[in-house]
């Protein structure tokens, strides 16, 4: 309870509210513009968090994360182009409703559903995270290595077309993280006598290359502007959400938020899976399934509740175990590390008040998202008309300034370009890049725990099956691998 109150007082600062609202605004803009992603938004503005404290920077990033999830639905409803991948399910019903002149109703339903899902998810985080953390504190180095391996295996398994390609890139990310000075013995590793490589590759520089600059290389076609004629005229009378509407969407909203929370806790799953799963459930439970795909309000609510319910749930493994559930959260983990908060089971012990401040903050992030969405949606609707041709050079200028600012080194700019080329080539070869990011983030923790465990056991691998928790985790890894392989075979068939 003391930690909760400390967290509350740590959170209630004007600077946190300002950071949160700027983050929300930016997140909605980036989410709304097709071609720009939430990851890109977070990567571009990550350098701004260096001068902020842990809570303030996390509020800024959480604002982008949550608002980006909702922002994707704006372009999905207005111009039939989902701003984010998980808004694809929203588009199925949002756009037909907009075509019928009920754009405002569709946007409002998406906003209400997103806020509901987000708040429920924040409450789940607030209650579940301390319980998981209490369990996490009982685990030792071999178990912690296995927890990291589990997270990486799942993400490697679900990210690529094949399990082997995911594992390969996950291992590549872990390998890149080993470059530089060895933290345990201080001997150099793969630095090729280059002084710039002594401290290894900066996580933020790698992320800028992998996710922002590689997107620019991918934009090798002329971008077009959205014309006004694509937007539909509104029928003012049909835009009110009635009591009957609320009654109709209550059940799918509750069910979808539960689905979103459960899916969000599992690493590697993400908002897209939650959206489609909820959409499918809502359709099968609906009294009017024939409306789905033709402007069903239940469809919009189900998908939007689910994809925002994921946001808080993905923070549960992140804050308690240091395992990021998806790429966006992995970048946020980087922000925690920049502020000296080492991810892992001790995070709640060492920085309990900050953790509570972040969790309480998530509730407010969703409330302010509602307010911004309510009053600024018209601006966001206009933002989608901004041509990508203008945004592309601005993004690169931002990226270069951000990459340079980390160590005030030009070398970092070329490192980010190298990572962009790597990501571009891997994309062409249909090899996933998200496991590289996870490898980069988890690399130092995994190696440290692996080596400590091996030193403790005098080089014997039996330490990884020496406790019931280890055996349980190994069984979980094997079971997940079997399920992933089975799923891939099923996909091919």
């Amino acid at each position: 309870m003391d930690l909760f109150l400390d967290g509350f007082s740590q959170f209630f600062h004007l600077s946190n509210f300002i950071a949160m609202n700027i983050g929300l605004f930016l997140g909605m803009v980036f989410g709304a513009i097709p071609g720009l992603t939430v990851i890109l938004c977070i990567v571009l503005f990550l350098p701004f968090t260096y001068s902020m404290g842990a809570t303030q920077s996390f509020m800024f990033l959480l604002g982008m994360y949550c608002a980006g999830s909702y922002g994707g639905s704006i372009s999905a409803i207005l111009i039939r182009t989902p701003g984010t991948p998980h808004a694809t399910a929203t588009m199925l019903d949002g756009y037909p409703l907009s075509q019928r002149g009920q754009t405002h109703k569709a946007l409002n339903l998406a906003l209400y559903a997103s806020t509901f899902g987000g708040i429920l998810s924040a409450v789940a985080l607030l209650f579940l995270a301390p319980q998981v953390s209490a369990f996490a504190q009982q685990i030792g180095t071999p178990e912690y290595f296995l927890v990291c391996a589990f997270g990486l295996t799942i993400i490697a398994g679900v990210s690529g077309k094949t399990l082997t390609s995911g594992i390969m890139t996950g291992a590549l990310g872990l390998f890149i993280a080993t470059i530089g000075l060895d933290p345990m013995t201080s001997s150099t590793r793969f630095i090729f006598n280059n002084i710039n490589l002594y401290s290894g590759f900066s996580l933020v520089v790698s992320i800028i290359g992998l996710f922002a600059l590689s997107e620019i290389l991918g934009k090798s076609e002329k971008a077009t502007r959205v014309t006004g004629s694509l937007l539909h005229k509104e029928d003012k009378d049909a835009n009110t959400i009635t009591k009957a509407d609320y009654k109709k969407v209550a059940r799918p909203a509750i069910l979808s938020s539960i689905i979103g929370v459960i899916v969000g806790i599992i690493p590697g799953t993400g908002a897209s899976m939650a959206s489609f799963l909820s959409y499918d459930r809502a359709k099968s439970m609906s009294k009017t399934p024939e409306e789905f795909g033709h402007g069903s309000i239940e469809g919009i609510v189900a998908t939007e509740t689910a994809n925002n319910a994921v946001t808080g749930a993905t923070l549960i493994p992140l804050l308690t175990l240091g395992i990021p559930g998806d790429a966006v959260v992995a970048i946020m983990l980087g922000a925690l590390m920049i502020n000296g908060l080492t991810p892992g089971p001790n995070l709640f012990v060492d920085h309990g008040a900050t953790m509570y401040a972040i969790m309480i903050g998530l509730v407010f992030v969703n409330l302010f998202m509602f307010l911004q969405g309510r009053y600024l949606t018209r601006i966001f609707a206009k933002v989608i008309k901004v041509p990508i041709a203008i945004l592309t050079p601005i993004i690169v200028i931002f990226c270069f300034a951000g990459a340079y600012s980390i160590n005030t080194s030009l070398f970092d700019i070329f490192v980010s370009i190298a990572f962009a080329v790597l990501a571009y080539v891997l994309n062409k070869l249909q090899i996933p890049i998200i496991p590289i990011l996870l490898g980069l983030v988890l690399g130092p923790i995994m190696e440290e725990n692996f080596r400590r465990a091996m030193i403790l056991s005098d080089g014997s691998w039996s330490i990884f099956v020496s406790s019931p928790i280890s055996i349980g985790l190994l069984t979980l890894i094997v079971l997940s691998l079997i399920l992933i392989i089975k799923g891939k075979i099923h996909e091919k068939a």
Partner: protein
Amino acid sequence: MKVKKGFCTSVCAPVIATIRTGISGVDTRLDNWGSKLEQKKFNIYPSIIGSVLFIGLSVTILVLMPSQIKVQPNQSITPRTFPALLAYIMLGCALLTFGKDVLKFIRKQPVPKVTLSALVEVKACILLVLMLGYGLLMPVIGFIASSVLYGVAMLCYFRVKRWYYYPLVVVCAFLIGYLFKYVLYVRLP
């Protein structure tokens, strides 16, 4: 004033017309090259190329490891242990993928192919060259000047014809430069 306006019209109008004709000529030429390149498509086997790349990478890591990571003798767990383990994992997975595809070839089963367009790849190369040029120019002419040049070059690449986009990007370059310099206190080149 009337005389001045008339003079301006008589001098500027032909210049603008010449520039316009020049731009449309370049546009037509680029369109012709583009349509020629667009027709050039090539197929690749992504899984085979990917696995060969990873085999090469992991073998290189293992070969270079003794020279790049010095260890003390008589230690079971060294700074080499973890990177070596990762290199073997990459090698194992890559060999497995490669073997699977070779087996498919022998059995005459379809191996997944990807069609690449020469136009898209050339465009990506141009974007890369522009980025590299931007990075190389930065220490020579400074962040803001190189950003302005890069911004204008990118708009030309996208063949943006609306004149007001150009000053907009230039203003943004200045704003970003000043933001990092005076708000974030980053000493940009």
